[in-house]
């Protein structure tokens, strides 16, 4: 039986637009690996579809993009798609939530109550982008500095690495970007992003079973 990835890609403001478009690369990688992809994009990223898919299709890996809080992850138009109390629906799964703060409380609770591993951010996820590239997020070299490393969590999991290793590999890419910018120096257009890349890297966490494999 082939593995299944569930990915949510709400798209209703600049941040979700960027996350959604860059998540296309995760989807492509999964398809390349013959993994069954359930892509809930735009208005399909709603609570009913997400919980229904989790219960019926039992995906081993769940990638959630969107805004979030300490106790929830949101979908399209800021509708809560995952919150405390949903542990049964995500039992034994690996979750990567690219959203603000959700690893702080929601993730902690979920791994205690049966989620295999929860990767995400325990504080705000800061993203810098270029205003003129809003219509072409994949061409935005500034946003790329943030989104390639965070994408790499999911890509590493798709490659068969453990949750802990996926987190480490992603952080290596964050560091590599920081190093590049330090070498380029203050004349670089993106030099200022260093502090935000560092912040995101420091607040990226892997909770639960670090040896979990998709």
């Amino acid at each position: 039986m082939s593995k299944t990835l569930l990915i949510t890609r709400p798209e209703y403001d600049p941040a979700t637009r960027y996350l959604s478009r860059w998540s296309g690369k995760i989807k492509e990688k999964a398809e390349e690996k013959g993994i069954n992809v359930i892509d809930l994009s735009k208005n399909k990223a709603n609570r009913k579809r997400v919980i229904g898919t989790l219960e019926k299709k039992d995906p081993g890996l769940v990638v959630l993009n969107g805004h979030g809080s300490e106790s929830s992850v949101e979908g399209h138009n800021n509708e809560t798609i995952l919150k405390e109390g949903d542990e049964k629906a995500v039992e034994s799964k690996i979750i990567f939530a690219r959203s603000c703060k959700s690893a702080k409380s929601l993730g902690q609770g979920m791994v205690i109550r049966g989620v295999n591993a929860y990767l995400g951010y325990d504080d705000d996820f800061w993203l810098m982008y270029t205003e003129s590239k809003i219509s072409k997020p994949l061409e935005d070299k500034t946003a790329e500095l943030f989104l390639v490393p965070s994408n790499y969590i999911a890509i590493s999991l798709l490659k068969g690495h453990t949750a802990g290793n996926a987190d480490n590999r992603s952080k290596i890419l964050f560091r590599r970007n920081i190093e590049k910018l330090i070498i380029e120096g203050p004349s670089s257009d993106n030099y200022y992003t260093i502090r935000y890349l560092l912040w995101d890297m420091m607040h990226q966490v892997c909770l639960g079973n670090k040896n979990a494999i998709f």
Partner: protein
Amino acid sequence: MIENAKKTEEKKEEIPKDAKELTIARLDVLPSDKKISVGSIGEFTKDELIERVEKGDEIGRKVVEIELNFLRTLREGSLLRDILAPDQEQELNE
């Protein structure tokens, strides 16, 4: 008494003047075509962030916190130590 407690609380949360000035000076060099997204709070231009730091609201305090975290990490040398760790490339290629 309640008024005094309120004032104490406000004072506690005030951004120190030098941290504020430092953060604003750093923000000022940010190219004006860049925007920063902070979760569901929204997107900010450099001028909007400078205004928030000056005001000392939640976002302003967070921007200062991130700036100080960056400087602290540089001072401790941990950022460069991590970057110069030789085993990273090897680990990625495995």
